């Protein structure tokens, strides 16, 4: 019986490449990984948004309307619905002039309880230190 902690760190802009989208979908798949593991073993994923990565969680992304694909906003909401730990770097929000109002902070409309946490970079550094593996993208 053990838990392995994975820290996904999203640092790239959404859409142009697959990097951040696939990080989110893979993090979400931690919810179904038990079928491959022994009883009681777990993989726990957290997601931190740093640098340009904070643009992944802007509200009102219209990629579905224009390009027929699910948005990174939608994926970010799903991570909260599924109770993954979500950290957002405060210094980077400040740099870009972004606030809670602009961002996906919860999945209340879908029945989720979890909220994203706006934290200083130090907290994200701690998350990285306590994780078993780091997955940057």
């Amino acid at each position, binding site marked *: 019986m053990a838990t*392995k902690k*994975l820290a996904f760190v999203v640092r*790239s802009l959404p859409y142009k*490449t*697959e*990097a*951040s989208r*696939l*990080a989110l*979908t*893979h993090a979400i*798949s*931690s919810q*179904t*990984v038990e*079928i*491959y*593991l022994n009883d009681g*073993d777990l*993989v726990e*994923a957290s997601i931190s948004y740093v640098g340009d990565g904070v643009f992944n969680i802007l509200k009102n992304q219209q990629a579905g309307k224009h390009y027929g694909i699910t948005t990174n906003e939608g994926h970010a909401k799903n991570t909260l619905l599924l109770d993954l730990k979500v950290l957002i770097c405060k210094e980077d929000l400040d740099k870009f002039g972004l606030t809670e109002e602009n961002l996906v902070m919860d999945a209340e409309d879908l029945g989720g309880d979890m909220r994203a946490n706006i934290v200083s970079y130090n907290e994200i550094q701690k998350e990285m230190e306590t994780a*078993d*593996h*780091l*997955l*940057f*993208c």
Partner: protein
Amino acid sequence: MGKLTIGTFSSLVGSMSLDFAVKLSEAAVKKGHKVDFWMSGNATMLAKKGQKAFKDYSFLSKTLQEMLATGNFNITACEACAEARGYHKEDCPDGFQRKSMDWYLASTFEADRVLHIGGD
């Protein structure tokens, strides 16, 4: 001896990131380590049978087959990513697997080191 899990999300031909991942795997397997190699997104391009060798493009199939023969190398493609690109079961090279994304997460559970190559 340890286990290395590599997650690749890059493109086969022209993106040297995927070449890097294959060469690193080869070096690790040669030293007796185990390697799990996960292909997602555009990296699933590796998971297509019948690739022809041209001198202008990297040709990785041979190296992959040699690694598979050692028994210490496991290569698995994201099934949905492959289907989205029109790669069906019969397109999958011998010895390659197709799984859902949670296979990658499960592979990290016993991995000593994980290298997630997220960029394109």
